[in-house]
């Protein structure tokens, strides 16, 4: 039986777009901090994407296209109040670096212990604790694998801003992971 053009389009869209649903949902949960809102946002994103699928250039990055639609939907629908951008926590970074500088243990040992042995939940919590602009770039780069160019287009900023935010975000993460390790009783003076 031959399909109608609309059936064919729907199947093509589902083949192209549905594999990215979990990535979009995961990002949406981190964006909205609510699973129900995230589900609504993702559904709205897919509907909009299907309506404009004829405008999508085949062969280009569908995942990046879907993420842009999701971001715009989030801004239009879910982010009702504009807020001042979170300030960079330089104090946190400074304190962390002071701690490292004063440590009597080789910092290479500290990093191996803290970061390699970090629990999945701790890494997830550390990412969730980041201000939105830093959380976004870490998720897009280190979890979803987007390039700097794609991230720059997504957040509508120059590539230099992406580089800067990513670097600062990673340092904030490092400070958080070190805190978790200390809370778990990690000793900086005891080689293992």
């Amino acid at each position, binding site marked *: 039986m031959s399909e109608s053009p*609309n059936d064919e389009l729907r199947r093509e869209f589902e083949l192209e777009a549905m594999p990215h*649903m979990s990535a979009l949902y*995961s990002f949406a*949960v981190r964006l909205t901090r609510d699973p129900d809102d995230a589900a609504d946002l*993702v559904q709205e994103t*897919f509907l909009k994407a299907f309506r404009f699928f004829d405008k999508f250039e085949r062969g280009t990055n569908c995942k990046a296209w879907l993420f842009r639609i999701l971001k715009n939907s989030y801004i239009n629908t879910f982010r009702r109040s504009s807020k001042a951008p979170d300030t960079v926590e330089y104090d946190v970074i400074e304190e962390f670096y002071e701690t490292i500088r004063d440590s009597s243990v080789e910092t290479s040992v500290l990093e191996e212990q803290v970061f390699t042995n970090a629990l999945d939940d701790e*890494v997830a919590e550390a990412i969730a604790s980041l201000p939105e602009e830093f959380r976004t770039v870490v998720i897009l780069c280190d*979890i979803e694998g987007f390039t700097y160019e794609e991230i720059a287009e997504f957040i509508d900023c120059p590539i230099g801003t992406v580089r*800067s935010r990513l670097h600062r975000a990673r340092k904030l993460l490092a400070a958080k992971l070190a805190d978790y390790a200390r809370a778990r009783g990690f000793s900086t003076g005891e080689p293992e």
Partner: protein
Amino acid sequence: MKDSLDSFEWISEMLDNNQEHLVADKVRGDARAERESRIITATRAAVRSRSTALRMQAPVSLERSIRMAIAAEARTQSGRSFTGKLRGMLSSFATQPRYAAAALAFIAVAASTLFVLSQRGDTLPSNMTEAALAAYANVSSDAGNIDLHSSDKNDLRAFFANHGVDFEVFFPTVAAELVGGSVRSINGRDFPVLVYRTAGRLISLLEVEQGAIDAKTVELDRATAEDVSNSKWHWASSQDRTLFVWKSNSIMCSVVSDLAVNEVSALFSLEVL
């Protein structure tokens, strides 16, 4: 301090450009740079090595809702494009007066036939979810689309048998009034649609015999098939429709209504299904 903390941004960028070896060369001999490089490398690796674990899986219910919403949108687009094409055909013939009269007459007959058929919805999509939604839309839009108005199960059984349904129709226990039935076609085979009413709202029940699914006459979504196989029934809701699917012996039953999920579940004796 701000400047010194940010002066190693190039480390992150080079690592992300797969230039780890160049980073090692650049930081060698500079204790601060070496420390920064190790910290950034370790933090980056901590996240990347957990990227699968850090990504949340979308719920199956979300996937179902999205597929239903896209199917509904595709149907809406089909309706619009049919009308648009017809308009285009009519206007193109208007420029050729020699053949306009005969061509217009043919188009009018064809269009009216297609229009009547689309309104009656005798033919349903091949996907069972879409077919169930279309059957509901058809019978709920116009009472005239219910082929036989009757609450008598024997009358309805005879009607279905005489109009091409080649399997025994199942009448579930429903706390709603049976108002009639229709016969609808999917890929040339006829299937029954039972229509119920409760509190002024209609409920349609499309029945598809397992053999039709095995023969690919009717397509079943993987998610629906898995749900019915694992947990007896499949629920989905999208926009203002509730879909409820279950299998009774060899018959796949798809209920659609504009009632909420909890209202539909209260009507059917699920424990005996």
